[in-house]
C-alpha cells in the first residue's frame, strides 16, 4: 500500500501512530513492509492456504464474533445434503464435469433450493457451448446471485451438520499451521502472531481491516482469495463497521467507475448483466434470471433499473410496446473478454481494435501474444497522451528485432489520436472507496488532443450520418439512440449533461424533467430514465453532488460533503451491521449508525445503508420479497436472503468455498489435494501461449524458480503515464529483477549486472538487484526462490524517456473462471547471469528451454490432475 498508494497510506501511518498493528504479508519486502510491525514473506500463489490457516484458528479457538455471525451471516443456513466438499473428492467439489471443465452447482444450493437453482440460475444457463462459460463474477458485484425465495432453514445453534458453520469447520480443519507452513513457507509461530493480532483486534470494541490489490486478484483463483478474506471478516464481525472491511486498493483513477459504468463485455451499467443469447429472449426472461419475486433485497427492483437504463439510452424510442428496446441490445454467448478477444485476433476474427488510454503491449500478460495479435488486425485506433508501445509495435517492437515480425509485412493500419489530459476536460472519476469526484477542466486540450467524450460522441454522430437512410434492422439501435448532448467550448459534449443522464430523470408527471433523487424513485413503466441506477442521486436536486468540495476540516470525519459516494452517498456499505441486532452500536468506541428509538429511525455518522425507518425488531410476513422482505436485522440488503455469505450456494463457478490450488505453473505439488490447479480455470493452450509443466508432470525442474510481477511507487502500470515523465523516469530508470543473495550465489548473479529470466513464453533481460529483502522460503521441505519483476518498462515506440524489456512478456495467460482475470502473479522461470540473446537467437534460446522441458501446447492444459499411485 505504501508502495502503490502512498497517499492513502497516510491513514495507515496515522492508525499506527495511534496504536494499530500493521501486518504485511507479501512475497516481496516493500516500502509497506519497511514500516510494518510484522512482515511475513509468503510464497506467491499460496494465500488461500494462508487465509485458511487463520480461519482454522478462528474456528478452532472459538474466536469468532458469535452474535454477529449468527445474526448477520448465513452461518446458520442449512445446505443441501447433496453437497460434497473438496476434501471428499480429492480437491473437487460435487458437480464437476471433466468434459466441459465446469461445475453443475445444483448440489451447492441451500436446502430446498436445489431444483430452482438448476433451473433459474444464470450460472447454469451460461454453461453453454462453446465450452467456456461467458458469465462473470462482475455481474454479481453488487450482490450474491438470485435465490428463488428467501425461506431458508436455519439452525441458530450452529450445530446442524449441514449448516454453513459446520461445513466451514470441516472444510478448514485441514488448514493447520503445519499445512500452512508446507504450502506458504510461513512458520507456525509467524502465523500464530497474525492470528492472535487479527482476533485480538476484532470484536465489539475493535475492528481489523484487510487491504489487498492485484496481488490477490491476478490468479486463476483470484476471486476465492477475496472470498477467503471475506470469511475471516464475517467470522470476526468486521464488515459494515468503521475500521473494518476488505479494501480493494484499485490502481487506476477510475477503475471502480470502469466497472460501475462498465466498459466490460458482460455488464451493463450498475452490475446489470449483458443479455445472454439463449436465455434472455425478452426483457421478462432477462429479469427473471436476475431476481425472483420471492427473494429479499433491492435486486428485486431490477426491472426499474433496467427499464430506466433503456429509457436513458433510447429515450422516446424505448416503449412498453417494444420491450423498451431490449431487443436492440446485442447478446453474449461466450467469453468475449480481453484475452479471448486477443486469441480471436490471432485467428483473424477481429478486424478493428480501439485502445483507449491502455498499453497492452506492455501491460497485458504475454506481451508477445498481444503484439502478434495486433499485427493481425486490419486497423487499430490508439488514443493516448504519448506514442506508447502498443501504437508502435509494428515499427520497433521486440518481435521486429527478433525477426518474428517484419514491418513491411504487417498490414495493420494504425491511427494514433492524441488524447486530452485530466486537466483538459470535465468529468468524474470514481475512486477506490466508491467516491465520485468531479474534476474541472482547466485548459483546452492542445492541438488535435481530444477527450474520449469528444471522440465517441462525434464518432457516433458520423456513424449516424452515414446510416441516416438505412432501413436495416441492425442499424436501428444506433439511429434511434438518444444521442443529443449539449456542447460546450465549441464541439465538446457537456460532461455534466452526461452525468445528468446517468443520474436519471422523471420523464412524466409533476416532476417531469427533474433529476431523480434516489434509485427507489425509478419505475419499470418507462416514466423514469437513469443510465446507472447506483449513481442515481449524484445529480440530486439538479446539483452536481460529485463536485462538492466542502473542506475536510469543516466537516465530520466521515466528510459526507466531499464528492458523492454510491449508493446514496453512503460511505460504508452495509453499515447497519455496525449496530447489534437490536440496533445499538456494538460498542461506543465503534458506533457508526444506530437505531434511534425515539425518532423511530436509523441515524449516525454516515447515511444508513438500510431502510431508514425499519425497526430492528421488524420481521416481514412470510412470503414477502424485495426490500419489504428484509427483516430489521438483515443488514446485507442486496443479498437475496439479507445475510452475508460465508458459503456461496451459487454465483461462483469454481466452488462455494475457497480451496487451495497451486498456480498453473508451480514448482511444487499441491500439498492439500491431489488436484493440482483450479480445474475450472480458463485456458488458451496454443503455440503463442505455452505453459511450463508443473508437478506431477515431468520437466518442471527446467524452470525451477517462482517469478512474480509488481509495481514501484515511481511508475504507473505499463508506464504510459510515467516513463514519458523525466521526473519519474529518472527515479527508476531501468528494468531490474530482485533476487535474494542466496539465489544470486546459486546462479552466479552479480548485483547491477544483467540477468536473463526465461519462461515458457520468452526471455527478458534485467539489471540485477541482489537484496536481502527477497527471502528464500522453505516450503514443504524445499527452498523456494522467488524473483520479483517490476513491470513498468517496454520496448518500442522510441519516444519514452526510459525503456527496457517488459516483465509481462514472460507471464502466460490463464484466467480465473469467474472474472476472466489473468494468472500473472506467479509463474515458473529460470534465471541465468548475463544478457539475453538478441535477434533470431532469442526465440531459439527460448525454444531450447521448451525442448528440455518437453513443452507442447497441451502442457498444463489437463484440467483434472491424474491421480498418482499411492505410496
Amino acid at each position, binding site marked *: 500500500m*505504501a508502495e502503490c498508494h*502512498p*497517499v492513502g*497510506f*497516510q491513514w495507515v*501511518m496515522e492508525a499506527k*501512530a495511534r496504536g494499530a498493528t500493521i501486518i504485511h504479508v507479501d512475497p516481496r*519486502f516493500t*516500502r*509497506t*513492509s*519497511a*514500516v*510494518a510491525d*510484522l*512482515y*511475513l*514473506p509468503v510464497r506467491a500463489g499460496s494465500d488461500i492456504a494462508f487465509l485458511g490457516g487463520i480461519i482454522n484458528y478462528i474456528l478452532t479457538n472459538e474466536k469468532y464474533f458469535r452474535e454477529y455471525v449468527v445474526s448477520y451471516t448465513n452461518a446458520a443456513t442449512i445446505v443441501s445434503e447433496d453437497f460434497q466438499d473438496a476434501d471428499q473428492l480429492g480437491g473437487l467439489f460435487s458437480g464437476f464435469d471433466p468434459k466441459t471443465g465446469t461445475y453443475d452447482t445444483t448440489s451447492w444450493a441451500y436446502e430446498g433450493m436445489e431444483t430452482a437453482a438448476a433451473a433459474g440460475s444464470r450460472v447454469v444457463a451460461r454453461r453453454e457451448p462453446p465450452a467456456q462459460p461467458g458469465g462473470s463474477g462482475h455481474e454479481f458485484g453488487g450482490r450474491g446471485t438470485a435465490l428463488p425465495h428467501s425461506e431458508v432453514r436455519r439452525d441458530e445453534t450452529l450445530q446442524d451438520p449441514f449448516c454453513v458453520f459446520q461445513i466451514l469447520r470441516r472444510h478448514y480443519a485441514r488448514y493447520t499451521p503445519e499445512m500452512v507452513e508446507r504450502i506458504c513457507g510461513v512458520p507456525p509461530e*509467524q502465523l500464530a502472531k497474525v492470528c492472535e493480532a487479527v482476533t485480538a483486534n476484532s470484536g465489539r470494541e475493535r475492528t481489523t481491516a484487510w487491504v489487498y490489490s492485484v496481488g490477490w486478484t491476478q490468479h486463476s483463483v483470484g476471486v476465492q482469495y477475496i472470498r477467503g478474506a471475506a470469511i475471516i471478516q464475517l467470522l470476526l464481525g468486521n464488515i459494515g463497521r468503521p475500521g473494518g472491511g476488505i479494501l480493494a486498493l484499485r490502481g487506476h483513477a477510475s477503475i471502480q467507475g470502469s466497472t460501475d459504468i462498465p466498459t466490460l463485455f458482460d455488464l451493463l451499467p450498475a452490475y446489470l448483466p449483458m443479455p445472454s443469447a439463449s436465455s434472455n429472449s425478452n426483457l421478462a426472461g432477462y429479469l427473471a434470471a436476475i431476481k425472483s419475486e420471492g427473494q429479499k433485497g433491492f435486486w428485486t427492483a431490477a426491472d426499474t433499473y433496467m427499464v430506466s437504463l433503456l429509457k436513458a439510452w433510447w429515450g422516446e424510442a424505448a416503449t412498453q410496446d417494444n420491450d423498451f428496446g431490449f431487443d436492440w441490445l446485442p447478446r453474449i454467448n461466450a467469453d468475449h473478454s480481453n484475452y479471448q478477444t486477443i486469441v480471436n485476433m490471432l485467428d483473424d476474427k477481429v478486424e478493428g481494435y480501439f485502445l483507449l488510454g491502455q498499453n497492452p503491449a506492455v501491460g497485458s500478460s504475454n506481451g508477445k501474444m498481444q503484439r502478434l495479435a495486433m499485427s493481425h488486425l486490419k486497423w487499430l485506433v490508439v488514443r493516448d497522451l504519448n506514442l506508447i508501445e502498443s501504437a508502435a509495435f509494428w515499427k520497433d517492437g521486440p518481435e521486429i528485432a527478433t525477426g518474428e515480425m517484419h514491418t513491411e509485412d504487417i498490414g495493420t493500419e494504425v491511427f494514433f489520436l492524441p488524447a486530452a489530459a485530466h486537466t483538459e476536460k470535465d468529468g468524474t472519476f470514481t475512486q477506490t472507496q466508491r467516491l465520485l469526484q468531479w474534476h474541472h477542466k482547466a485548459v483546452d486540450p492542445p492541438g488535435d488532443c481530444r477527450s474520449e467524450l469528444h471522440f465517441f460522441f462525434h464518432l457516433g454522430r458520423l456513424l449516424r450520418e452515414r446510416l441516416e437512410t438505412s432501413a436495416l434492422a441492425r442499424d436501428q439501435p444506433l439511429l434511434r439512440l438518444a444521442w443529443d448532448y449539449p456542447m460546450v467550448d465549441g464541439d465538446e459534449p457537456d460532461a455534466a449533461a452526461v452525468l445528468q443522464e446517468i443520474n436519471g430523470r422523471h420523464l412524466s408527471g409533476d416532476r417531469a424533467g427533474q433529476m431523480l433523487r434516489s434509485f427507489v424513485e425509478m419505475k419499470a413503466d418507462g416514466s423514469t430514465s437513469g443510465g446507472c441506477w447506483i449513481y442515481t442521486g449524484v445529480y440530486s436536486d439538479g446539483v452536481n453532488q460529485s463536485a462538492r468540495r466542502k473542506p475536510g476540516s469543516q466537516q465530520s470525519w466521515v466528510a459526507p460533503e466531499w464528492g458523492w459516494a454510491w449508493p446514496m452517498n453512503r460511505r460504508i456499505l452495509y453499515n447497519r451491521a455496525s449496530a447489534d441486532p437490536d440496533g445499538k452500536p456494538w460498542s461506543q468506541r465503534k458506533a457508526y449508525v444506530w437505531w434511534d428509538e425515539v425518532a423511530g429511525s436509523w441515524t449516525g455518522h454516515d447515511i444508513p445503508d438500510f431502510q431508514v425507518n425499519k425497526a430492528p425488531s421488524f420481521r416481514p410476513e412470510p412470503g414477502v420479497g424485495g426490500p419489504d422482505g428484509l427483516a430489521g436485522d438483515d443488514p446485507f440488503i442486496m443479498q437475496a436472503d439479507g445475510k452475508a455469505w460465508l458459503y456461496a450456494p451459487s454465483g461462483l463457478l469454481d466452488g462455494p468455498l475457497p480451496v487451495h490450488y497451486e498456480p498453473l505453473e508451480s514448482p511444487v505439488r499441491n500439498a492439500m489435494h491431489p488436484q493440482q490447479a483450479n480445474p475450472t480455470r480458463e485456458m488458451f493452450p496454443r503455440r503463442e501461449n505455452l505453459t511450463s509443466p508443473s508437478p506431477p508432470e515431468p520437466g518442471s525442474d527446467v524452470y525451477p524458480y517462482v517469478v512474480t510481477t509488481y509495481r*514501484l*511507487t*515511481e511508475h504507473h502500470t505499463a508506464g504510459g503515464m510515467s516513463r514519458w515523465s*523525466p*521526473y*519519474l*523516469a*529518472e*527515479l*527508476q*530508470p*531501468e528494468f*531490474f529483477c530482485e533476487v535474494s*543473495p542466496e539465489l544470486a550465489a546459486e546462479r552466479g548473479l*552479480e*548485483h*547491477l549486472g544483467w540477468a536473463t529470466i526465461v519462461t515458457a513464453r520468452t526471455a527478458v533481460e534485467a*539489471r540485477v*538487484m*541482489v*537484496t*536481502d*529483502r527477497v*527471502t528464500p522460503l522453505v516450503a514443504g521441505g524445499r527452498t523456494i526462490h522467488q524473483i520479483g519483476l517490476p513491470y513498468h518498462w517496454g520496448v518500442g515506440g522510441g519516444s519514452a*524517456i*526510459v525503456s527496457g524489456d517488459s516483465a509481462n512478456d514472460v507471464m502466460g495467460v490463464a484466467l480465473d473462471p469467474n472474472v476472466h482475470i489473468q494468472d500473472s502473479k506467479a509463474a515458473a522461470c529460470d534465471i541465468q547471469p548475463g544478457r539475453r540473446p538478441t535477434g533470431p537467437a532469442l526465440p531459439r534460446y527460448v525454444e531450447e528451454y521448451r525442448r528440455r522441458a518437453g513443452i507442447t501446447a497441451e502442457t498444463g492444459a489437463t484440467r483434472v490432475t491424474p491421480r498418482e499411485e499411492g505410496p
Partner: protein
Amino acid sequence: MHGWSTAADPARDTGWSEAPARKGFFTDGSVCIGCKACEVACKEWNGIPEDGLQMLGMSYDNTGGLGASTWRHVAFIEQPRRPVGAGSLTPLPLVAATHGQEAGGDPGSGFKPDYSASAGASSGPQDTAAGSAETGIRWLMSSDVCKHCTHAACLDVCPTGALMRTEFGTVVVQDDVCNGCGYCIPACPFGVIDRREGPAGARNVGIAQKCTLCYDRLRDGMSPACAQACPTQSIQYGDLDELRARANHRVEELHAAGVADARLYGADPDDGIGGAGAFFLLLDEPEVYGLPPDPVVTTRDLPAMWRTAAIAGATLLAGAAAAFVKARS
C-alpha cells in the same frame, strides 16, 4: 565573527528587523516510506531539470545524493539479516565501505555491495519501528535536504552576496547574482550545494543551486512543496521552535516504544553549525544515511585562519626585507 550563543537569531543577525519566527523542516525518518514525492514535488515547483537516467543499485535510490539538480534526496538503506548481539555496538549496514579502499568515486558506475565485507557485522536491536523483527531486515529511508544552518558556511564564504539569509532564517541562492565561483560547494559540511553543470539550455546552468525552502512559497504563507506533498508527514514544515519541541516528543515516544535507535540530528543549537533549520530524526548513525557525524561550520576557525594569514604575511614581508639586507654585492 560569529556569535556562538545558543540564542542565535539568524534573521535578525542579518539585518531583518521585522522577521517572522524562524522556519524549518523536521524530517522524521521513522515514518518515511521512501515514496520520493518530496523529490518530485521539489523539482516540479522549482523547475529543476532531470539529472541522470542511470540505475545506481543503491537499493531504490537512483538519485544518489543532493546536488545542484536534486534538492531533496531520499536515502534507502537495507540492513540485512544479522546475527543478534554479536560484535560491536555500531550497526554496520550492508553499505559499509571497507577500510583503505580507493575514494568512493564515480557515482555513475553504480554501487556493488560486498556481501563478504558485511558478514559478521553486528547490530543493535533488531526490533525497531522501521523494521521487521521477523526477517531481521531493516529498510531505512529518510529524505535529505539542505540544513539551512544557523551558522551557514556557504553563506559566509559567498563572495558576491548571492547567498542570502532570508527573513525566515533560511539560506537561499539569488539566481540573478551568483557568478558560479563555486566556493560555497566545498564550504558546505554536508555536501548539499553544487553548481549546475547542465543540461545545456536548462535554467541556472553555471550557478550554485540548492534548496530554498521554497522561499517564494513562504512569502505567500504556503508550505514548501516537499512538505506539502509528503504523504506521511515525514517532512514537517513550521516554526523551528515548535518543530524542535515536536521532535523531542517524538523521540521520547519512540524510546518508550522500544526504538532505542531513534535520535535527532541537527536539532541541537550547540552543535557545530549552531543547529540546523532542517533537522532529522534518524534510526541509525548519521553516516549510515550519508550525513557527517559531527559537522562544524568551517568559518568557526576563520578568525584563527586570518591570524595565521597575518603571521604568514608578516613573515613574508620580513623575509623579503631580510633578503635585501646588504644585498648589493
